[in-house]
């Protein structure tokens, strides 16, 4: 039994550590984003409204629903459950965020992206930082795509399940 597990781990190449790192970075970002929003759902709804894209009821649903979605997605990635699927969903979410931010930029709105809470209101005397927000989300998007391609890492529920399967002799 031990031999089988050891062999399985030894067969994992070096990139699995990079994959693990990327997965944990992504998990941390989602959890940070979710925690900063879920403590003030009103602010989260205001942030979505500030984009002036969605009708009222949809803005409420998205604003109040997203924090829980982000937290859960972060938790799944943290424990490594369904990493490839989580990465794909992350990529889709990030792409939507980037479209929203770009649209706010194009329309000349003066808002904060609300990515990490804050209700969309800019702090006093600050300008929007759409360029930085898009760059950051773009980098994360690349990370999610890499993770979707190479999801297998360490300390992951997925890996434990796979290991057990090998134990069972296929």
């Amino acid at each position: 039994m031990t031999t089988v597990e050891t062999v399985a781990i030894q067969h994992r190449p070096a990139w699995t550590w990079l994959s693990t790192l990327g997965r944990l970075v992504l998990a941390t970002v989602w959890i940070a984003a979710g925690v900063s929003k879920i403590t003030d759902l009103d602010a989260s709804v205001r942030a979505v409204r500030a984009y002036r894209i969605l009708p009222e009821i949809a803005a409420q649903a998205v604003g109040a629903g997203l924090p829980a979605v982000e937290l859960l997605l972060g938790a799944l990635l943290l424990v490594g459950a369904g990493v490839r699927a989580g990465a794909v969903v992350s990529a889709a979410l990030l792409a939507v965020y980037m479209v929203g931010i770009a649209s706010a930029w194009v329309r000349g709105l003066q808002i904060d992206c609300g990515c990490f809470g804050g209700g969309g209101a800019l702090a006093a005397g600050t300008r929007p930082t759409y360029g930085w927000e898009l760059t950051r989300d773009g980098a994360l998007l690349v990370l999610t795509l890499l993770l979707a391609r190479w999801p297998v890492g360490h300390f992951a529920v997925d890996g434990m399940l796979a290991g057990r399967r090998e134990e069972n002799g296929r």
Partner: protein
Amino acid sequence: MMSKKTGRRTRSLVTARRGPSVLMIVGIVVVLLFAGAVGFGVYRAQHQSAAAAGAVPTNAIATGVPVGQASAPNTIDIYLDFQCPVCREYEQQSGATLDGLISSGTAKVVYHPVAFLDRYSSTQYSTRSSAAAGCAAQAGVFPQYVKLLYANQPPENGNGLPESQLISLGQQAGAGGNFAACVSANTFAGWTAALTDAASKGGVDATPTVQVNGKQIDNSDAALRQAVQAAK
């Protein structure tokens, strides 16, 4: 706990080099949507209870505090946050102009003390100060209280003013009676949440925002004078 069958499916989906993990993605999306729906439900429930409990201060309306003659021909809406330094600057710059327009009966001013900047203090100062301003409106000293709150504005990313100071400033403004109890009980926090939400729904997402007869203007004194002049 985990059956052999489930383990195999997970493995094949996760470690497959190619091919869709469609089933897994659908599963995760469903779970995430469920979490989102729970969040939405919590939000709606919070709002229903807040709406039921949301008392409006005497001398105030659901969306703010009107100051001046109700029959004045012009209405100036000011969306402010007591934590916002630019709002204080606006008061210093245009406070006298506004006072003049009010006393001459040219305009009434509706102050909307929104709580946009709660995260810039460790104690949700925006909400607490706005709710306390509701108590000041009830006590009939709102204009004086606004000036005192600005004069004593705490720095951003600090602790905000303590409750004792919110109370003493109100007493300094002339509020008596149950003002202290009103502030201590955070009586009008629901009113603050409701008027903040109303401002957000109305497309206001920054403070200060100034509107003359419903039309947003620049935050300069010249723009304010010009807009009121033009409306005559």
